[in-house]
């Protein structure tokens, strides 16, 4: 396995990751785990999301910013190194946060918003062609399938963390360490498997 370069780095000492998806997809848990790994690596970390009404089927985003000294817990538009779309269409919605040389990790899953369910709006047909990124900057992942293979479809979020981990220079052993204490004992194995399936995807 050749390790991709840390594409989030750029020249900046503070870097940003943006997770975007739909309420109930486990985004907040995933970003908590990511932050804990970073803290154990000795980095300064801030993360931000808004709870409340967004939980009721609305969009959920989590900004994670890390480096030697982090000020703002939210990234500005055009400054995110890695955008992880837990739902395909959300990759498009938050595209303006991505740096020119940033990458998008896109979960190949569709969750229809109400207007699409009612037949009043169309779900975009081909997200890949709508993403104006160089093909090498887009990583499509079938996280749900891999979650099922890991033994629990709800580990989709952890599969995506596994994919993300390849783009970051964080010790794999620290990921394992944090994952082991992030779940009740009976769910640890499925989540570890999910993470490693994502990591080699």
């Amino acid at each position, binding site marked *: 396995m050749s390790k991709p370069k840390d594409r989030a780095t750029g020249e900046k000492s503070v870097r940003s990751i943006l997770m975007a998806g739909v309420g109930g997809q486990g985004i907040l848990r995933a970003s908590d785990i990511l932050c804990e790994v970073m*803290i154990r690596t000795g980095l300064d970390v801030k993360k931000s999301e808004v709870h409340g009404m967004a939980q009721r089927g*609305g969009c959920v985003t989590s900004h994670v910013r890390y480096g030697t000294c982090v000020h703002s817990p939210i990234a500005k538009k*055009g400054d995110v190194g890695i955008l992880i779309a837990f739902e395909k269409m959300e990759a498009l919605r938050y595209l303006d946060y991505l740096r020119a040389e940033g990458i998008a990790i896109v979960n190949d899953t569709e969750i229809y918003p109400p207007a699409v369910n009612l037949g009043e709006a169309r779900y975009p047909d081909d997200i890949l062609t709508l993403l104006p990124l160089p093909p090498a900057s887009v990583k499509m992942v079938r996280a749900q399938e891999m979650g099922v293979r890991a033994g629990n479809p709800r580990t989709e979020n952890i599969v995506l963390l596994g994919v993300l981990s390849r783009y970051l220079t964080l010790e794999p052993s620290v990921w394992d360490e944090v994952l082991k204490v992030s779940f009740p004992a009976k769910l640890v194995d499925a989540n570890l498997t999910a993470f490693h399936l994502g990591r080699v995807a």
Partner: protein
Amino acid sequence: MKNRKLMSGNEAIARGAYECGVRFASGYPGTPSTEIMESFARYPGVYAEWCPNEKVGLECAIGAALAGTKAMAVMKHVGVNVAADPLFTVSYTGTNGALVIITADDPSLHSSQNEQDNRNYAKFAKIPMLEPADSAEAYAFIKIAFALSAQFDTPVFLRTTTRVSHSKSIVEIADPLPVEDTTQIRFNAPKYVMVPAMARLRRIEVEKRMQALRAFAETFPENRAEINRTDVGVITAGIPYHYAKDVFPDYSYLKLGMVHPIPEKAIRDFADRIDRLFVIEELDPFLEEQIRAMGIPVTGKDAFPYTNEFDPGVVERAMRTDPVEDPAYVPPVVPPRPPNLCPGCPHRGLFYVLGKLKVFAAGDIGCYTLSFMKPLEGLHACICMGASIGMAHGMSKALGEKGKGKVVGVIGDSTFIHSGITPLLNAAYNRSDCVFIICDNRTTAMTGMQEHPATGFTLQGQSAKALDFERLAEALGIDQVRVIDPYDIRQTRAVIREELARSGPSLIVSRRACALFRRAAGPPQKPLRVDPGKCIGCRTCLGLGCPPISWRKFSDQAPDQIVKNTKKQDGNAVIDPQLCNGCTVCQQLCKAGAIVAGEE
């Protein structure tokens, strides 16, 4: 390492309060403040309670402080409006122990009905206010707030915003201080009986206290000048400090930890060293107006927006003189994803019926407020907690005969307890002709399942008396009280129609536990499915706006898959079994009998 924790601002406040010996907290849930009470309540040896509303919450905290302890009242920004009555006078009495009021403001109205800037309350009520910028400061400032309260015999405000409350950053926590019991009954009528003669004297004490606090502010270490480049300087407080530091790390800063009262001399000293001065603050020009009144020219709201929260990009655009580059990518327009009632939400059946009955439903604050949206369109006004009942009553009085059977007031269970009881009493007393409906989902759902006086449990998990809405309504003088199950559409429609046709006020309790509230709702039922052999494509089920139900056009289906049951049919409904919780409301509406239980 062990003591470095990733904490939200809310968790950090709870931790700081616990460590410095706070053992009493009261409040009412409200985004973005809710997790302060929830995390505080879990520490050993503390007492914490959910109150019916913020006014009661503050009054309990005032009493606890009067008994000599450190007490905390916790609320969201609009909660302070409810608590404003005791607030303005406890400023006169001061506290015997220590009292901190936490106001969690919501710039951008992420989960609120307005965007009020509660720094104005500090000035208005003459109460000092601290404002942290991140979790580490939230943790430190709550301790300072309690120390100031004791030192100056004053209630102290701690103001957060959604971004501070809900962002997580690293906090170095410590062990809690040993707690001494400082409580006892002390009689001091001149200080605590606010009749005019004594309040006039306390009024003078308030001004003396503010003078002392102004002097304190000049040397308060959390009013911190960071002198770097002096061509541009920034005066700011709270989260905008971090946004500015992010994009302009080289400028000089005067970061105010205390936003009321402000340190005039420190501001003048800072301004003297700076060529161009900016004031960066979300919402109102609270600091800016005071600094301008000192005769210091600043750039503030002439460059920065009045509305919404900022981010580093907003600050950069407002301050940069050279053009700011646009983001590299422009997102295409994609369908919006508004918040929606959950699958199987008990509000759905009720508001479907109200929408179809074409009545005016004065609504209230809660998940059910979302019923104003298409396709339900069953709620037509929302002002504040408890407003629906009074509004409906007032509307029907104004409309007279025209309004008969056309106006209802709809309110949640927790919201009714918060501030719906007195307007219901008013409706009984003043011979209302309205139908009032309590959407009783057995919990405070919108903020995440908090207990309330009708759930039978307290914040700290003890069993409690459960308020009986039917008996309460009867005691208030509402003669007609009905109970319906909003999962039963026929009954819901029939009872509402009957009550609309009657004279006099009536109360309908629409009782069904929130679908996500497992303790009361139990596990979900088996998902339903659409039998394509029976679906006639009438779209009635889509009128519920239930997330699992979607429309599949025939033009998007493989020709050999299409089952056409009527001539004009151009598609059929499908139900996502992963999302459906089997509430059967859609099944009751389907005239074709196409929504069925069980596997294909």
